[in-house]
């Protein structure tokens, strides 16, 4: 039995605020696939010399900040291992995805501007989430105009999802003897990372080169897990149906760990697995890459 908490069943504004803060970080959006190439990137000459250390500002993302700080701590460890100086801007909050994906662009614009002002001093911005990185690279330019649009594009060119940065920019490598065994893993491609940022090979490559992982691909790994930000709370039955399908495919792969790059999707999957009594460890890719199996998997008890 899980800890059960039953107060008044009525949902007030505060309830919804809380629900929103907690649930609404969408793992989604999208741009057309062929536009991936048009995403601005730094030219060779702009990139720091090999001898320089990468100056990285970490965007923790609000879900990791609130629910799973180990993702951020492991991200810092990985970035430092890759030769980066990591700064965590302390005034960061949320990138504005919840409001944006529910159509409240007006409420999103000030958050986008705040984010840009907070992070634009960085050489690189790295986020352990495809949907948050995609929000910055793809959607800020879409909702900002004039000078702010230009600043958004400029920041977009320096913003990366964690596995993308580690493999494509920092080129993190690890000697064989330092690679820890993370068991059998199946990787769920979160939608925004996959379709906005083209993240598919990077996490698998890193699992194979930084750890000893037995990668087992599940069927139709490109299908949404049903999280979708506020979707999972607005249409819970449809969302749960999708999560169950995903878990069924993950189980059929034979892997004991289900990994992914977006905590929203992972909380949805771990929560559904618990509800259905499905035995599978759900973890963020940063934890596996850092070899941190000591931290209980998502949704597991933290008291032995």
């Amino acid at each position, binding site marked *: 039995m*899980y*800890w*059960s*908490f039953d107060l008044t069943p009525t*949902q007030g504004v505060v309830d*919804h605020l809380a*629900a*929103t*803060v*907690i*649930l*609404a970080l*969408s793992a*989604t*959006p*999208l*741009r*057309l*696939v*062929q536009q991936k190439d048009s995403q601005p990137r730094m030219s060779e000459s702009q990139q720091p010399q090999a001898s320089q250390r990468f100056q990285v500002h970490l965007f923790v993302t*609000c879900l990791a*900040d*609130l*629910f799973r*700080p180990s993702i*951020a701590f492991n991200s810092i460890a990985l970035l430092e291992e890759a030769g980066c100086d990591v700064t965590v801007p302390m005034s960061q909050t*949320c990138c*504005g995805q*919840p409001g944006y*994906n*529910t*159509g*409240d*662009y007006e*409420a999103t614009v000030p*958050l986008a501007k705040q984010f840009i002002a907070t992070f634009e001093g960085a050489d690189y911005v790295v986020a352990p989430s495809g949907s948050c990185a995609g929000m910055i690279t793809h959607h800020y330019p879409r909702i900002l105009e004039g000078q702010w649009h230009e600043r958004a594009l400029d920041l977009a060119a320096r913003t990366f999802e964690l596995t993308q940065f580690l493999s494509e920019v920092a080129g993190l490598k690890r000697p064989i003897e330092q690679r820890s065994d993370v068991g059998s893993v199946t990787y769920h491609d979160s939608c925004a990372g996959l*379709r906005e940022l083209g993240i598919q090979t990077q996490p698998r490559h890193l699992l194979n080169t930084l750890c000893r992982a037995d990668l087992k691909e599940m069927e139709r790994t490109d299908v949404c897990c*049903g999280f*979708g*930000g506020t979707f*999972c*709370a*607005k*249409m*819970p*039955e449809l*969302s*749960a149906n*999708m*999560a169950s*399908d995903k878990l069924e495919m993950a189980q059929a792969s034979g892997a004991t760990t289900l990994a992914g790059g977006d905590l929203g999707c992972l909380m*949805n999957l*771990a*929560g*559904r697995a*618990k*509800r259905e009594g499905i035995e599978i460890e759900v973890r963020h890719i940063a934890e596996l890459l850092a070899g941190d199996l000591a931290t209980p998997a998502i*949704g597991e*008890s*933290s008291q032995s």
Partner: protein
Amino acid sequence: MTISSNDFIAQSVVALQEAERLRTRKELGKHMPALRTRAVEEFGDFEGLREHVANVRQHALDNLDYYLPQFEQQAIDNGNQVHYARTGAELNDLVLSICQRHNARKIAKGKSMVTEETELNHHLERAGLEVVETDLGEYIIQQAGETPSHIVGPALHKPEAEIRELFLDKHPLGPRELEDPPAMVEEARSVLREHFLSADVGIVGANALIAENGYSLLVTNEGNGDLCANLPNILIVCTTMERVLPRARDAAALVRLLTRSTTGQSISCYTSYYSGPRRQDDIDGPLETHYVLLDNKRSDILASDYKDMLQCMRCGACLNHCPVYIGAGGHAYGSVYQGPMGSVLTPLLSSLEESHTLPSACTTCGRCAEVCPANIPLPDLLRDLRHDESRSKLGSGRWRVSMKLHAWVSQHPRLYQLLTGLGVRTLHRMGRRRGGFSRLPFASGWTQERDFPAPQKDTFMHQYRKQAAQDE
């Protein structure tokens, strides 16, 4: 139509409980994408073709004031009559008046989403005409008195046994087995053949109108479109103005995209171009042919930020690839257009008031846009419709207010960190032993279907700040 689009959530919950139909949709969701993928890979530069056709169609839409009159003139020169209908009611009246002028009693219809949109059949039947749908799927749902659940496969929701019962009930052919689908298809074919031969008017749709020669294009897999178009004396093509393409070769390019996206076929079984009435040396064909071109708000869409939606070629790929459609089924959308394309089109063709739930029936996963042969940025359009919904305050007030509040708190980092810290530490203390919550009063939408994983001991920001202080 009795189901309202704003009942989507309740209807989808019902659909999820219909186990057999859900299983069928899940099979569809597996096999149709696989067929499409194979066809696209075999083709080679599908991306290049997609971009080419999208550019051509954009050009045609941007210059509709040139190509539409060109099509009209060419079609008239070929002996057709061309009519324009601003609304669905106007299209229905125009078609009825043509039928009545010829004292028609029976109409054989090919598959046409435009006439589904205008509910033409009801209009003609109310005037005493007999209308027979001849596409097998459309025929099945017409016999059953149901609405289409998929724009390409309108009867996909009907299990085999239901169709057998339906045919045994509706066809007065005495006791028989109808043991398998081929037997049922054979029976429908022979029943329909009589209708083709006795119909006074044929009505079909069009996949494209070709400006340079005034022809229309129709693809079918059953050949029923050609029988509707060639056997009755009168042919009426009902379609919409955004189907216009400049050249015949553009229509050929469109077919390459369309059939691969729809069924994974390299070409449909029947791909027909209609020029006009029977000429002197022709051995068959209609004596009189009409085009009825419907607007029904498409001019407004063309002038709006949603004009990309006019590139939709009704292939159904977005439905087949949409996990929400697969779960909810087509009828939940309360519209003749379902899935991602339907969730964009329905609010635009009716009103956002009547269908503002539909744009939220989407995780913005983007699989639809990835496979859309017309390159329509469906998730962006759906999100923009949510923006319209938000601005016109149509949806839930609680969500709207909580978004505003969330945005406001997020703009005050100290307050944000104070509140999140308090909340997280409380949740951690309550949930750490079990690892999660099976019920949380403020997240009932979440915990209705899944446990809520408990947070680790404190927010990252608090832990990091403490750690930094210790280091100093």
